């Protein structure tokens, strides 16, 4: 396996809300190797976005890293000052955000916004920056003449591509893509993401892909970490995760997702209940209240993320019964019987 570019170790992040603290992510560890794409999947509120933001330390005012390390090329980013972080953002780690409309300033021309990043971060001359921006636009297949336009003159797909160009402006080694195409229509989604992939390959960059879309993960990621309620519950290479998952939540997700390639009469399952509110650390496994395979032990004892195969980790007490659970998880009765 190639060298680790980003190593997140036991990271915890809390949001102060009113009187309490919501532990949005709790003791999360993952690694992104050189040149690889790691998928961070989960549903709304599972902490995947928080994890991505914690890596570059761009977080809302009421959030703070409460523990753990974020090692980039061996150097821990958590204790770094804002000044030091600024040197790392764009140059080393760049973000493709979810909403292009909010990420671009509506009162400046798109070209100026990209050139500014290049000038500020790279010390390039305005002419160099201009040339660079034009090259980037050609790479994401937008006419460089469009640099002179304002964001509102762009279509949604073009705005998102402009953001991709901006993220790539300084050849970062790591891209953090947070639901990079969710705001787009299906066809634009595919086209934008195809561009992102092609450019990533060309630059040899690594990517942390944060998404709820299992299809995007299956097609683009080398490895996948599944998050639930602030924890990573399963981590494996993509083929293993889709082919032989062991955590009941992954099993549920897999059978909850409709696909145009599935037989039409195959029933989809739905996981009853909703994720816990993370105001206080829940007792036992966080998925236990919704898990059809939960035993008293699951409700008492918090399962640790343990190896279950080569490069495959899962946080479940019953990984030994994975085969049986996998067979039963396909049936919708499994998920409806007894569940609240």
């Amino acid at each position, binding site marked *: 396996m190639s060298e680790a570019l980003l190593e997140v170790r036991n990271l915890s992040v809390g949001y102060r809300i009113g009187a309490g603290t919501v532990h949005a992510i709790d003791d999360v560890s993952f690694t992104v190797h050189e040149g690889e794409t790691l998928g961070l999947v989960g*549903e*709304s509120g599972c902490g995947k976005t928080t994890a991505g933001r914690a890596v570059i330390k761009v977080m809302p005012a009421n959030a703070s890293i409460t523990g753990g390390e974020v090692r980039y090329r061996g150097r821990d980013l958590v204790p770094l000052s804002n000044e030091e972080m600024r040197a790392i953002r764009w140059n080393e780690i760049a973000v493709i955000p979810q909403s292009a409309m909010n990420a671009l300033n509506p009162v400046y021309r798109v070209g100026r916004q990209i050139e500014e990043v290049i000038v500020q971060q790279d010390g390039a001359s305005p002419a160099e920056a201009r040339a660079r921006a034009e090259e980037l636009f050609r790479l994401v*297949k937008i006419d460089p003449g469009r640099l002179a336009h304002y964001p*509102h003159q762009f*279509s*949604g*797909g*073009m705005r998102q591509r402009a953001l991709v160009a901006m993220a790539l402006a300084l050849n970062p080694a790591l891209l953090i893509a947070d639901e990079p195409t969710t705001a787009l*229509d*299906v*066809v*634009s*989604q*595919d*086209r*934008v993401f*195809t*561009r992102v992939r092609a450019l990533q390959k060309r630059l040899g960059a690594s990517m942390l892909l944060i998404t*709820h*879309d*299992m*299809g*995007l*993960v*299956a*097609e*683009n990621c080398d490895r996948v970490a599944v998050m639930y309620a602030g924890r990573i519950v399963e981590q494996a290479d*993509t*083929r293993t995760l*889709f*082919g032989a998952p062991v955590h009941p939540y992954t099993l*549920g*997700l*897999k059978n*909850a*997702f*409709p*696909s*145009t*390639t*599935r037989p*039409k009469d195959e*029933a*989809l*399952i*739905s*996981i*009853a*209940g*909703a994720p816990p509110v993370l105001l206080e650390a829940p007792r036992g496994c966080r998925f236990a209240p919704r898990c059809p395979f939960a035993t008293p032990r699951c409700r008492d004892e918090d399962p640790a993320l343990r190896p279950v195969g080569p490069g495959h980790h899962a946080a479940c007490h019953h990984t030994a019964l994975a085969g049986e659970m996998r067979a039963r998880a396909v049936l*919708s009765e499994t998920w409806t019987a007894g569940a609240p």
Partner: protein
Amino acid sequence: MDGGGPVSAAPLVTARNVRKSFAARGELAGLFARGEGAMVHAVDDVSFEIREGEILGLIGESGSGKTTLGRLLVRLERHDSGSLHFQDGRDLAALGGRALREYYRDVQMIFQDPYGSINPRFTVHDTVVEPLATQRLGDASGRRDRVARALERAGLRPPRAFADKYPHELSGGERQRLSIARALVLEPKLLIADEPVSMLDVSIRAGILNLLKQQSREFGLTILYVSHDLSTTRYLCDRIAIMYRGRFVELGEAERVIDDAHHPYAQALKAAIPIPDPEFDRPRSEAGEDPDEAPQESAGCRYAGTCPKAMEVCHRRAPELRPVDAGHSVACFLHHPADAEARTD
């Protein structure tokens, strides 16, 4: 015109050449343009039927007019021209006052946003009893029973446990079920479901889809399922219509339309969906124009500006939706070469 196939029952809804346009409201256009301004044809010359007991899927991207079409059917919008008739001959254009109120006993709607579609100041019981109150149906105890039955039917069980809760105490999935209960309490014949699962988490989507499926199978509820998502539509629907910029481009039996898409847009749509199976090698097309970048108006096919297979005729005339097969219609000159040659004007 329609998707063909043996028409077993009288259609519940018959739409003929329905059009609806809005004044264009761009971010800047709104600032400068006064009065006349450009019109956007949200629904442009659409004809179709909704058959009794079926689940018809309406697929399209944002701006395709699919939501507007759904809203026309519940008279939240009025169509400009063409005709919309309900089963027993009621003309939607002519409904008003009492007749309109009674129409809503037959046709109901559920919405995309599970947060915005429920009054935050109403309890679950208030929410579901409201349609009975406005329709002046039943007495207090009769209404209580009907509310309980609707909650039960929507999967909020036991109804007693939910009746006094406020929306903020419910999860997204439960709110969507509440929305469904509110629609079902009047025991309508037709339910318009506008993107009912797109804002829900994956793990609970299937619950709502299965619930809708069950309403159709067990109670014969007719459903118009409006969505941008091919996978859920294919899973749920008997027939599917694909809309592009206000027009139907393809209509037919669900599996046919998805698995054997004819229209170049339908094919592009299907090809663009990532498949949640790492073993599956999806053929990728190299990025061309984004569909939303193609010019807006033309006398021809709306897709011609983007279509890789566009012919000269496509830019001049709009193709009509016509059968290619039993139960499968397409609006494309590629599949109706005779139409392309006929009456060149």
